[in-house]
């Protein structure tokens, strides 16, 4: 599952392949991130535990604020935040240079002569505020960036795989899509959908698994960034997947009511806003035929609410790594929201990570197995 210096671990047909030096540079970023996480961060956690043990958390109106106030002046806390962010900036710098070096080859690979699927861009599309106001994950230019090329998509693909430390399906980075489809097959093992929509598909890492699991279905993916979508299309074609990509907001899509049998999103809601995520849930209901299934997959951290350190680090991540709706997505009452939209059979829980939607074990339960091992899922039937 992890990636290393072996050539086989580096590639799918479309991904920007690093030179020797670029690969070491990227592995350096991965190892730097692991070092920060495993060696530097534990001391901060111990400091937080110490602070929390010394204060009467139960009598405080704002234990999280108290923790922040106690830690903020500490030099080691500030330098930890600094190096965490710097590691993220190193990631994009390393990947950006590698992608730019091979711009011509990538553009050539991106020209598909006889495509299975399609890409439809909207020249008048306005990127939503929550994407425009801060570059998500500090990716320079942001998800909405468009220079007329596929390069930002190439940066996101390679960068995403490095960002996930290779633990999300290596360079395919597709385990969230596989897991969403595994959730579908857990509760509808015989489903044969005609149309499937992936909302906020990015570069299609979560969309291709739908096309693979359901080769007869018409699979669509929407997102806000033109460069990302051009790349997503090329990437899917090179993987032999028939997907139709369209530039649209998941809040208001161009499809008619009841157009899809399955609508899903993977780690999209926490990159929106509290209002927008409700619009996305509502749109997923509108787009489903009666009996159709919506699946919204999110980071498996919801169970940590109540752990002040986890909550605090989540807030720091949201603030310093630009995750605009982290708190909203992790604290939403999904059952109430989905039931009020008219969803039936609402299920909330954790789907064990599937490497292959069809053949992997299908386990859905109330507790999380932890990050990378399971994903939070809220699903319902229209």
């Amino acid at each position, binding site marked *: 599952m992890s990636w290393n210096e072996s050539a086989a671990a580096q590639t799918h047909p479309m991904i920007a392949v690093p030179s*020797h*030096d670029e690969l*070491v*540079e990227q592995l*350096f*970023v991965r190892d*730097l991130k692991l070092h920060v996480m495993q060696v530097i961060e534990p001391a901060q956690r111990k400091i937080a535990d110490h602070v929390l043990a010394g204060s009467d958390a139960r009598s405080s109106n704002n234990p999280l604020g108290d923790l922040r106030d106690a830690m*903020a*002046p500490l030099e080691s806390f*500030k*330098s930890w*935040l*600094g*190096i965490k*962010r*710097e*590691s993220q*900036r*190193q990631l*994009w*710098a*390393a990947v*950006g240079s590698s*992608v*730019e070096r091979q*711009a011509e080859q990538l553009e050539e690979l991106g020209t598909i002569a006889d495509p299975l699927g399609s890409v439809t861009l909207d020249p008048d599309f306005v990127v939503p505020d929550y994407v*425009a*106001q*801060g*570059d998500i994950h*500090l*990716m*320079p*230019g*942001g998800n909405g*960036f468009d*220079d007329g*090329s596929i*390069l*930002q998509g190439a*940066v996101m693909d390679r960068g995403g795989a490095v960002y996930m430390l290779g633990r999300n399906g290596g360079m395919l980075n597709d385990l969230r899509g596989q897991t969403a489809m595994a959730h579908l097959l857990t509760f509808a093992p015989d489903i044969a959908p005609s149309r499937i929509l992936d909302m906020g598909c990015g570069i299609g890492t979560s969309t291709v698994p739908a096309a693979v699991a359901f080769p007869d279905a018409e699979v669509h993916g929407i997102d806000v960034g033109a460069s990302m979508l051009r790349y997503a299309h090329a990437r899917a074609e090179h993987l032999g997947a028939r997907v139709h990509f369209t530039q649209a907001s998941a809040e208001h899509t161009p499809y008619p009511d009841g157009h899809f049998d399955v609508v899903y999103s993977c780690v999209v809601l926490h990159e929106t806003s509290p209002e927008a995520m409700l619009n996305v849930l509502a749109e997923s209901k509108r787009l489903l035929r009666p009996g159709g299934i919506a699946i919204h997959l999110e980071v498996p951290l919801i169970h940590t609410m109540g752990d002040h350190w986890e909550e605090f680090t989540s807030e720091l991540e949201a*603030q*310093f790594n*630009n995750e605009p709706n982290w708190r909203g997505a992790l604290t939403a009452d999904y059952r109430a929201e989905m039931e009020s939209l008219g969803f039936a059979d609402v299920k909330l829980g954790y789907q064990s990570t599937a490497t292959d939607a069809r053949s992997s074990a299908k386990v859905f339960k109330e507790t999380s197995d932890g990050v990378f091992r399971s994903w939070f899922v809220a699903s319902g039937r229209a």
Partner: protein
Amino acid sequence: MTRIPLPRTPNRLDPIPGRAAADEQTLGMIMGLLSEITVLRARQDACERLLASAGLLPPGAVDSFDPDPAARAEREALRKRSIAKVLRPMQELAQHELASLTTETET
């Protein structure tokens, strides 16, 4: 065709409360250097292994390398140059402070 470079600076970098911008700069530069050193070391390692597998560099040859006097002198000069280069700002500040103290005493 001249390509417009991809952006390198993300939109929205919230300041870390209480942390000087200069500290962020220094950290960014040190991490950049660490990245460069890591790449260089890997590249050197690749060269040594390739030379060894081509039979041009017997195992342990680098570690048991015994430079002759001329090589020793050149290598010593390289080391001194590196140290002076990296520690230049400290030396400059010390010289500056020394100069201002000396001037104060003299006046």
